[in-house]
């Protein structure tokens, strides 16, 4: 199952439309669409979801598609699910600036994180048979940060 989410703050019609077009050929796709202006025709969709229900879908998903929201990224890491990031663009009125593009570029090198900069890449990544899940052990970066905090506290 593919789980898609746009977060709770802003709708993301371009992502939902792309997924809706692809849904009939992708198997089960469940999407949290927020305040999307259009009603999807093919997607199994929810405007918003209870945290518990959302967690359950996360567990069932074999890949996650999302805007470049950090909350979703952290959840994908926690649940050990490959995530495809489709960043919002300011030029298309999807966010007030292009910080999601900057986030996506920074995250591209992380294992288990895939970035689609346009609808073609999105389709390609959705159809790839095997995506690597993110590491579920704490990364070097997290251990370094914990170490710095610890050192400060005990000093």
């Amino acid at each position, binding site marked *: 199952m593919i789980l898609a989410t746009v977060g709770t703050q802003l709708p993301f019609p371009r992502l939902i439309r792309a997924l809706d077009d692809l849904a009939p050929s992708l198997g089960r796709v469940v999407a949290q669409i927020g305040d999307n202006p259009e009603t999807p025709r093919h997607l199994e969709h929810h405007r918003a979801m209870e945290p518990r229900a959302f967690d359950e879908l996360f567990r069932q998903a074999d890949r996650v598609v999302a805007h470049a929201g950090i909350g979703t*990224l952290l959840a994908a890491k926690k649940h050990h699910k490959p995530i495809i990031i489709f960043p919002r663009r300011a030029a298309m009125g999807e966010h007030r600036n292009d910080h999601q593009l900057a986030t996506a570029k920074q995250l591209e090198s992380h294992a288990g994180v895939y970035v689609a900069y346009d609808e073609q890449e999105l389709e390609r990544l959705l159809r790839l048979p095997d995506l690597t899940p993110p590491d579920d052990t704490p990364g070097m970066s997290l251990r370094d940060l914990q170490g710095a905090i610890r050192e400060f506290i005990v000093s």
Partner: protein
Amino acid sequence: MTRESEGIQQVADAGPRVLAVSSSGGHWEQLMLLRDSFDGCDVQYAATLAGLGERSGVGATHIVPDFNATRPFRTMMGLLGVARVVWAARPNVVISTGAAPGLIALVVGKVLGARTIWIDSVANVERLSLSGRIAGRIADLWLTQWRHLARPAGPVYHGAVL
């Protein structure tokens, strides 16, 4: 103080008393990813939402009001609420991953003689949050989670929760 915080046990003779404060959502998730940093400390958590501590397995938390600068009256009441929690916790170290209530906790902690740590949210990729920029004036350890946002005068980068 709220009823939730009355159930918090103080452990005598533990390590430094740490008060870790965060808003709900991503801020809290990040704080939880960092909790191993407090091993051996007498740590108390404060959150803007009841039940988060229990759900994350760290026990009851103090509850602090949620607010941001757009609502002056709520902010005023929020300041008082945070001040009471910090006062009651008597921390040696106050740490926050944001947002505004965490900043206020650092300010109050500082006034009461605690050392302070600000960890700007990993969501702030292009620039620090407003709270994070203000925190730079008072935090003894001022951290960004993005290398490109670090500056010689701070914030510093020592890794990220990613």
